[in-house]
């Protein structure tokens, strides 16, 4: 069994992973840092983020306001100490990225430009045209090239965490190019593998987002947090799931139902104005917009297409010049992938799964309760997003917590002794498991795609935008059956070289575990809050559920869900209000009267 050894090991090389690697290298250049990614780093899904990254830099803005917007947007499920740290460090991180060459869009005087974004009361979203994630990721990747302590393992697929003596001591990974299965030991491991959108049938997420890190941590005994909170983005193209960025609405787009009516005014989101108003109508929070779609759908006011029901996004009134300057990528996407020109036509959109608020439970330094294991980015739940993430918070989240986890892991690793060789026995067992259960097995009866499609349909039906106890319980049963069928899977591909079918099978295994944790947490939370809406429990219940759902794996493979109270520092829970009501509030304080529903 071959083995390589490093001090800090990153699983995943996207925004969070590369930032953590650079942070670890800067804190201690003597350390040996490995970035193990199943794709080349510039293919990571950070690259597709369009809208922007929020950070307080303008005179008329304050950290408290950013914090309050995030906390109230998260329906008070955010840990407020984490949010305070986040809003303080976000501008510094974005500025650091500017130092490293990120081409942020500018005002005419040369200063950083900021724009409005859904859920934010002030303009504080930094942006690089409408390809912010792309520019951030490429800047981080190109900057990481100049750090010699960072060794990259490109296209290595991690299948298991090595745990011994109560701490994580490395990973087992497959080198895709050659098929070699090898242990890579490390004194600290940071998971930066992103979210799990591919569990759902309609998603903006790339093929590579299968909840790898969440499943790895879950199987190793680390707890997952708030898994029931899945964010739908209200405007995605129907067939491909391609995201039409929130910025299109921030620049003034309208959402119209079958009758050409701006239907959001019926859902407590303010009244239609000719120009976009922050936190009102189309700039309301994403979960409310997605829920409005489902209601319109139930009333029969959406348009039916072969790829599902849709509504329309209307940008025609903005004019060609504005669309070409502020939203060139939106126009390009619509024309290249659906043959539609937003300057002249309506864009078909529907809610698509976009982000996972839940993830591996960490503290504000990215540390999980399992010693030596850290997590940052979408895979982690710190939690700063609570029950619903505000747009433009996830990119700075990758940077802030990536940097913190990198530093913390570097300091931890410097004090550890080298992993002992007993983990190599675990690695050999893992290799044997992969070979016997997948690579060399010829008598299975199930195909990967059948089980995957079954899982996606089940999860969308029971754990979609609206949920109820009965369908969740049924969904849990179906998922258990799918797990059993998964054990009977058969691959067509028995080669070792670049076996993407083996990779797909392992990813499906990860997704089934994560899907189960989502359904269990959703079953357990008998209230409605943010992105988790139960039709059988429509009210928010702060008395019992102002707490995170923590799901852990039992030794027999089943899961148990517990509650962990939310950390409140300065903002007592209040009502999430949007539209005109939000304009009258001067200071970020709790509202004393509570309205029904």
């Amino acid at each position, binding site marked *: 069994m071959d083995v390589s050894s490093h001090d800090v090991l990153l699983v995943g090389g996207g925004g969070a992973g590369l930032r953590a690697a650079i942070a670890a290298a800067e804190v201690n250049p003597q350390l040996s840092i490995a970035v193990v990614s199943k794709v080349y780093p510039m293919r990571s899904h950070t690259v597709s983020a369009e809208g922007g990254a929020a950070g307080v830099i303008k005179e008329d803005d304050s950290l408290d306001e950013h914090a309050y917007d995030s906390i109230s947007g998260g329906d008070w499920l955010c840990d407020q100490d984490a949010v305070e740290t986040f809003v303080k460090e976000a501008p510094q991180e974005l500025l650091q990225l500017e130092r490293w060459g990120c081409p942020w869009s500018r005002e005419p005087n040369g200063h950083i430009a900021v724009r409005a974004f859904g859920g934010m009361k002030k303009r504080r979203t930094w942006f690089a045209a409408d390809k912010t994630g792309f520019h951030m990721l490429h800047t981080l990747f190109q900057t990481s090239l100049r750090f010699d302590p960072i060794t990259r393992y490109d296209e290595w697929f991690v299948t298991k965490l090595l745990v011994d003596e109560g701490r994580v001591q490395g990973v087992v990974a497959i*080198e895709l*190019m*050659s*098929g*070699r299965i090898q242990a890579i030991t490390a004194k600290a491991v940071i998971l930066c593998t992103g979210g799990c959108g591919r569990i759902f049938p309609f998603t903006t997420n790339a093929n590579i987002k299968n909840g790898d890190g969440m499943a790895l941590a879950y199987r190793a005994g680390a707890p997952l947090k708030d898994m029931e909170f899945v964010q739908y983005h209200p405007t995605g193209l129907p067939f491909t799931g391609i995201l039409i960025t929130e910025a299109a609405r921030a620049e003034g787009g309208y959402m119209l139902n079958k009758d050409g009516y701006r239907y959001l005014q019926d859902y407590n989101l303010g009244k239609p104005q000719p120009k976009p108003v922050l936190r009102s109508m189309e700039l309301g929070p994403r979960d409310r917009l997605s829920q409005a779609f489902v209601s319109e759908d139930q009333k029969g006011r959406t348009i039916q297409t072969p790829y599902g029901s849709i509504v329309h996004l209307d940008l025609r009134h903005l004019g060609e010049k504005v669309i070409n300057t502020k939203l060139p990528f939106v126009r390009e996407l619509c024309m290249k992938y659906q043959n539609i020109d937003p300057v002249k036509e309506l864009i078909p959109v529907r809610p698509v799964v976009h982000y996972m608020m839940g993830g591996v439970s960490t503290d504000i330094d990215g540390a999980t309760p399992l010693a030596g294991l850290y997590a940052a980015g979408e895979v982690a739940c710190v939690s700063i997003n609570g029950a619903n993430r505000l747009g433009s918070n996830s990119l700075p989240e990758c940077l802030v917590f990536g940097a913190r986890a990198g530093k913390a892991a570097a300091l931890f690793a410097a004090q550890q002794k080298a992993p002992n060789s007993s983990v190599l026995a675990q690695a050999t067992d893992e290799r044997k498991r992969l070979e016997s259960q997948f690579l060399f097995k010829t008598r299975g009866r199930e195909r990967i795609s059948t089980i995957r499609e079954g899982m996606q349909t089940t999860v969308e039906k029971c754990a979609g935008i609206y949920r109820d106890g009965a369908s969740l319980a049924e969904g849990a049963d179906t998922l258990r059956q799918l797990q059993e069928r998964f054990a009977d899977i058969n691959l067509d591909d028995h080669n*070792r*070289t670049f076996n993407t079918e083996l990779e797909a099978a392992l990813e499906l295994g990860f997704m089934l575990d994560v899907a189960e944790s989502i359904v269990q947490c959703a079953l357990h939370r008998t209230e409605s809050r943010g992105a988790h809406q139960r039709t059988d429990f429509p009210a928010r219940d702060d008395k019992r559920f102002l707490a995170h759902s923590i799901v852990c794996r039992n030794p027999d493979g089943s899961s148990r869900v517990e509650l962990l109270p939310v950390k409140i520092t300065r903002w007592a829970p209040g009502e999430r209000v949007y539209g005109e009501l939000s304009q009258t509030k001067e200071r970020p304080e709790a509202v004393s009267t509570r309205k029904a529903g």
Partner: protein
Amino acid sequence: MRQEIVKAAPAYTEFHPRWYRAPVSVYWWLGQWRYLKFILRELSSLFVASFVVITLLQVRALRNGPEAYSRFQHWLQSPWVIALNFVSFLFVVFHTITWFNLAPRAMPIWVRGKRLPEFLVAAPNYAIWLVASVVIAWFVLR
């Protein structure tokens, strides 16, 4: 028989797969019209050189007196020289047009924060070419 040869020597030893490197043919430029156009563009430099050589021969003939010059003019009328000059002329025109059209890509001109469109940068070249041709033609033909 062919299948045996293919299977007899698998290009893989455990964990060191042999990558396949497709050979690049010497005639790669015949594969696509755009590649062929490129090679012709490069070849045109030979014909530009041929024009230069003939001009130098003309200058030398001028220097050596009227007899040498009339021998040169006679030589110019031989069929193969006419053919060469005709082909060279076509290639030189091709060379000029492709050169003028490519020049703006190498020299972006920024005016008040905006980049000038390419045809505006190429246009002056064409204008000067036209003017120079007209002037020389007038001198030669009057």
